[in-house]
């Protein structure tokens, strides 16, 4: 039944969506904020060292 062939990819499709969502969540929650945090702190200690 060749008309069912697209449904054989549903497994792959759903998993890729789940993985994509998980990646977005993990990056936005745990990994990318660290860069902003690092930049904020870099600005802060630079300002501190300029003050002295």
């Amino acid at each position, binding site marked *: 039944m060749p008309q069912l062939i697209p449904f054989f990819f549903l497994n792959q499709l759903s998993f890729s969506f789940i993985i994509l969502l998980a990646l977005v969540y993990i990056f936005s929650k745990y990994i*990318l*904020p*660290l860069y*902003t*945090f*690092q*930049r*904020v*702190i*870099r*600005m*802060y*200690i*630079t300002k501190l060292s300029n003050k002295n």
Partner: protein
Amino acid sequence: MATKVAASAAVDFSRVYSSLGLGKETIASLQAFRKRHSEAQRLHAQYSGQPTTVDLARYRSILKNTAIVDEAEKLLKDFKPVTYDVSAHVKAIETFEAKAVEKAKETEAKIDIELKELQATLANIEEARPFEDLTVEDVGAAHPRIVEAVETMMKKGKWTVPGYKEKFGDLNMM
């Protein structure tokens, strides 16, 4: 009262001079006060050791005019020292002393706390790592305010730090 006296007597002045970090003027005035105190003590001891009675019989035997000795004796007998009511003064001094001792204890406690803080600071300085080894976590732990600020930035969707690019540049090709 006895405990107060004990506390006052137990002051180790050499320690007070050396370890409390007092100003020069304070130390000078403290030393002057101690000198005055010891001088007063010395004078008191000297004068209290002197006899307070008058040997009238000897005067009577030496002087020809015994009438004047009689008169002197009468005057001496009649003499009564004027009494002053010193209780008010003593009371004022006692309250002052109590206050001073209390204040001194307070200051001692305060100085102890300060000393502890200073020792903590000293330990902090001794254990401090060089600036190159400083990590983001260290700064975040030292200033939780920054962590909170970054969290609010994340909630508002702000991912860039204003002024960062101008100061440090970036690696973007475009």
